[in-house]
């Protein structure tokens, strides 16, 4: 449904998106992951035809983005509806951009996103969560086949986020294809497919469970330990260490080989003067995210 073929884009001679190819099938929720500045927004803008690619082709519904416009909707990262217009006026305006005049359909849509009580309110007076919903309704007004969402849940409370995600699944079940950028791991976990963008390049693709393979053969250990800054530095400096990460009282260490496990234990023991037990576990998405980002940064 969505296809990128070797697309690249430079701004001021800096390659923001570098030879990216990807393919998203119909009805899938595709998550584009990556740190800030990785080129996610540039990529989604090229796919939705807001900016032109320098090289390569972007196709939606097998059509060039320019021709595919009636078939996709796009929600920008920033609120882009008209603040001076009411909710209803905004929705009707966007519907008319696609020659959609069916008021009943729009009513249903407004109702579906809980905006019915706010219909007459000016868009500028809505809370952040409701502005997101309005943006979504405007993007869905022409019942598109594909939906591009640039960080749709950034800055949104967990309840609204859950509601939105429940809805994304419904949309996907209805056969719509969703392309979502995010840097929330919890959100990435929910996608059918993921691609990891770092410094403009796709460094990993796959389902949430198999994208971890992108790290190659790694060994993940965890233990319960208070945060000690010196310990972190010491562990980070070990040759085998890929990543050291602290979650509250949980310390996670990712190693390139299993043999260094004892070395880690020794280091910890030396600093804390108390015996520690390392449990082996699996890499989670956050580990992958940070590790991949770090690799890319250190290779720059």
């Amino acid at each position: 449904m969505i296809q990128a073929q070797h697309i690249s884009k430079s701004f001021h001679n800096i390659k923001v998106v570098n030879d990216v190819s990807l393919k998203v099938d119909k009805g899938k929720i595709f998550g584009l992951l990556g740190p800030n500045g990785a080129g996610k927004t540039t990529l989604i803008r090229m796919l939705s035809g807001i900016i032109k690619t320098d090289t390569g082709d972007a196709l939606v519904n097998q059509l060039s983005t320019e021709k595919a416009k009636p078939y996709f909707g796009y929600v920008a990262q920033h609120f882009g509806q008209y603040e001076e217009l009411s909710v209803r006026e905004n929705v009707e305006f966007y519907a008319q951009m696609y020659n959609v005049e069916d008021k009943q359909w729009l009513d249903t849509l407004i109702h579906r996103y809980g905006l019915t009580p706010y219909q007459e309110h000016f868009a500028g007076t809505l809370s952040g969560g409701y502005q997101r919903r309005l943006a979504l309704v405007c993007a869905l007004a022409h019942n598109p086949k594909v939906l591009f969402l640039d960080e749709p849940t950034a800055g949104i409370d967990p309840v609204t986020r859950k509601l939105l995600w429940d809805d994304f699944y419904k949309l996907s079940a209805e056969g719509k294809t969703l392309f979502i950028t995010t840097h929330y791991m919890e959100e990435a976990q929910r996608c059918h497919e993921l691609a990891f963008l770092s410094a403009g390049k796709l460094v990993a693709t796959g389902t949430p469970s198999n994208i971890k393979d992108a790290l190659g053969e790694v060994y993940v250990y965890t233990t319960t330990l208070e945060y000690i800054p010196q310990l972190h530095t010491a562990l980070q400096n070990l040759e085998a260490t890929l990543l050291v990460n602290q979650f509250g009282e949980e310390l996670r260490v990712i190693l390139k080989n299993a043999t260094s496990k004892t070395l880690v234990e020794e280091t910890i023991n030396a600093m804390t003067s108390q015996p520690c037990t390392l449990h082996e576990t699996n890499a989670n998405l956050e580990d992958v995210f940070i590790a991949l980002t770090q690799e890319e940064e250190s290779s720059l």
Partner: protein
Amino acid sequence: MIMAIIKKELLQLRRDPRLIALILIMPLVLLVLFGIALKLEPKNVNMAYNDNDKSFFSNLIKTNLWSDGYFNLYEVNSKKAIIEEIRSGRAKAGLYINSNFSSELIENAQPTITFYTDGTMPSLTTAMKYHSGSATDKEVTNDMYFLDEDAQNVVIADDPFLMQTIVLFNPDEKETWFFLPGVIGVLIMQIALILTGISIVREREKKTLEQLLVTPISKSSFIIGKLLPYVLIAVADFYLILGVGWSLFELPQPSSHLLLFLLAVVYVAVMISLGLLISLVSKTQQQAMFIAIFIIVPSILLSGFIFPLEAIPDVVRPISYLIPFTYFVEIIRGLLIKHTLFTDLSNAYLALLLFSVFFIGASIIKFKKSL
């Protein structure tokens, strides 16, 4: 804490080099321009004359008018031609001397010469009347007294001849007749430049443009849709102010309603397309506003709207002719007050048309690049 705010404001300003340039350059340009331009002392006012006497005496009058440096005399062949020259705008004043001027003068019959002025611009009319005094001052009349010293003593009146002044087109010298038509142009300029000027930058700043660009609407439909409301508002405003002028200020009816409508359309097209161009070159609404004001202020002062073009020195005059408003002022005064013929206004219409073609063309080029 106030210092911190002040510092922050200055830093923000510094990060907007275009705005800084505008803030610094605008006063400088305006200062130099007005320092040179606004002398308020017209020179070389064109005067058409028809001298049927062609005598030493009539030459004396013309020479003295000429040497004063205020009027720039040229000859036409009839009394009617004088009025037509003034109607067309080629001359602002006229002088008529009839064929028996010198014979009546010699007979001490106190002949009359006629001085015509264009009443469209009352301030200029007043100045012209004042300067026309050099036609009758002592330098002229003294030579008339002592022409023939040996002749018998004839009683000569205090004034050997009289000058009759006829104010054309706006005989009562009403200031409203002079100002109102121009005010229409100023208001349309403001609406067009400021409203249109910020219209697209605003969509860009508020991020609504991006959301709009993903819809299938074509760029040209987008622009036309954005501009048409302002075109209608501007044309409506044009007639609204005219209506007020007609009903409250006894503003004269135009020589041709069709030509008046044509003016409204062409002028609005020029201003809206200029506003669009401003909106396309500006990065922020602030910049757009500043550019708009930068255009409006000199337009008002250098167009002949308040100060006569004759008062603007030759060095600055070309700028006056680069201002679309200059042509608007000429046409609307011509249509409403002087009933100037279309043939005499066609160049001004053409100028406005060229401006609109130029601004629309430039907007299209800029628009293709920037959106």
